[in-house]
């Protein structure tokens, strides 16, 4: 489920980072406005809780495989959207750095996919409107499962969109969707079920804990319609330019898939297509504004020369490979050299 650096282009990665950082800053401001000091240690420890909980596996009924808790939904239910989003972003940061889940550039996408949807779309629109303080455990189970499915489907859909916009993978839209969504339907159902299970368990065993927690939840009372609309606005700005491009030049996912199968790759244009829409954001976030966009031109040159490739003298590609092997060898030698010097010095 984690998006990966290797599948991203700088434009897409940068845009989602900008989005994620923007929301983190927004949440930080919201929390500061009505801070209840008590929530600070609670947020920190709950982040660690999500990790600890992820280390325990359960056996998925009917199959031999095992699953674990994702965490976004349960955090949103317990802490409210603002605090939950910050906690989720911190959990994902640690996953990116310590467990190598995704990488640094993809972290923006992952925070977006696994944080925004459960905290700012699913929780206020589905969970919070359908579950009240006195709702029955059964109702919590049903609503949680719907929420879990919705959050994970949105997240999985985002992974597909991000991958396609980046143009590193050849997977056609339709095929990718068919592979991602059903898997995440199952994962979403489990996530919802576990979330509800834990909430109901705690509610029956120690109801006062949830109550004491929900005191601090009051600092972010139910999201107003205005905020939800603002969220959708950010969402549409980030994906809008890109999606409209899809709509115009690829009227049908299937047609696109067929086109791809028959090998007429339009990916260089694809890069150019999203570039203008994202350029503004990119310029703001990129460390070398004009630099990373060069690859758009590079790609088209490459694309043009692609037809010519088979006719090009063998020499060129051989020298490329030979050179690559030599460079790799040199680098390895450098590494071993440093190591050797170090050992000697000791």
């Amino acid at each position: 489920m984690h998006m990966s650096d290797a599948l991203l282009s700088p434009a897409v990665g940068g845009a989602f980072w900008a989005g994620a950082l923007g929301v983190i800053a927004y949440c930080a401001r919201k929390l500061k406005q009505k801070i209840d000091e008590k929530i600070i240690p609670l947020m920190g420890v709950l982040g660690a809780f999500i990790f600890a909980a992820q280390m325990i596996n359960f056996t998925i009924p009917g199959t031999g495989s095992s699953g674990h808790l994702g965490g976004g939904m349960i955090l949103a239910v317990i802490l409210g959207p603002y605090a939950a989003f910050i906690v989720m972003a911190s959990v994902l940061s640690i996953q990116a750095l310590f467990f190598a889940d995704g990488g640094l550039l993809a972290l923006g996408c992952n925070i977006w996919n696994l944080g925004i949807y459960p905290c700012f779309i699913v929780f206020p629109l589905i969970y919070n409107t359908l579950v009240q303080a006195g709702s029955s455990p059964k109702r919590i189970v049903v609503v949680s499962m719907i929420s879990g499915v919705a959050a994970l489907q949105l997240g999985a859909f985002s992974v597909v969109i991000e991958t396609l916009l980046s143009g590193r993978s050849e997977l056609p839209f339709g095929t990718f969707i068919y592979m991602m969504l059903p898997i995440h339907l199952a994962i979403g159902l489990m996530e919802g079920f576990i979330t509800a299970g834990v909430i109901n368990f705690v509610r029956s065993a120690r109801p006062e804990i949830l109550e004491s927690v929900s005191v601090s939840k009051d600092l972010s009372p139910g999201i107003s319609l205005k905020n939800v609309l603002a969220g959708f606005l950010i969402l549409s700005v980030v994906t809008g330019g890109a999606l409209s491009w899809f709509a115009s030049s690829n009227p049908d996912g299937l047609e696109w898939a067929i086109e791809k199968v028959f090998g007429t790759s339009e990916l260089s244009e694809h890069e150019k297509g999203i570039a203008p829409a994202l350029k503004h954001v990119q310029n703001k976030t990129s460390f070398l504004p004009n630099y990373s966009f060069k690859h758009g031109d590079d790609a088209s040159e490459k694309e043009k020369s692609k037809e010519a490739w088979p006719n090009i003298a063998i020499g060129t590609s051989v020298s490329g490979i030979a050179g690559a092997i030599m460079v790799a060898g040199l680098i390895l030698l450098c590494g071993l050299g440093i190591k050797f010097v170090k050992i000697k010095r000791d």
Partner: protein
Amino acid sequence: MLNFDKEYFNIGYLDTLAYKNTFVHRLDPRVKLVTTIVFVFMVVSFPKYELSKLIPFFIFPVFMSAAGEIPARFILKKLLFVSPFVFFVAIFNPVFDTAAMYNLYGIKFSGGWVSCISIMIRFTLTISSALLLVATTSFPGVCRALERLYVPKVFVVQLFFLYRYLFVLAEETMRIVRAINMRTFGRKKYGLKIFISTIGLLFMKTVERSERIYHSMCSRGFNGEIRLLKMDKTGFADIVFAVTAIALFIIFRRYDIARILGELAL
């Protein structure tokens, strides 16, 4: 139920690596963070059929692991462990992109294979550099860098807290799991019911702990304002490191060093 011990000691191991004292470890965390981010941007900015220009970039992770005395085997193991998703996506490139691209002594390589290999190289470069960043900087170091790069304080404090209590809660979890194991006669598979009540129990313990932490913070004068200790300084060595690294990245990005070298050699 337990792939647990392994994961736990894995984080612990990365953490101990960060407390070595080498040139790389002594660099200002901000410098390492920024350099790594530039590195990742450079690597992913190549068009999708790029292979040879990517190879020189290996110098960065190799340097970091050699100079930082980080065992390469440990990093490679971690890479292998998380590679399935990327591999699963990349392996479809040869299926969908079959136009011949290279012709080596009669053996044709399709564009799909080239872009697939390119994705796997990018994966190796970007993920290993992220792992090496923590292994040579320590997580608190990364957090301090973030704070000084104007990331919101609430988020930075959240990261500090999470990291601090990660180990504490992992031990708590270990105790719970051990208790379950002792009462279930070593059964290996657990159903949802036991799983949910385990997580529920862990949750209750977590909340209780957070209350104790809050009280102890209050008794030490916490009043809602979060204060962080600042101590990193950017020195001459840091500037040299950053400038050299970024200059190298730019050269590698612009010129196809591998091809030039190959042409010279042949």
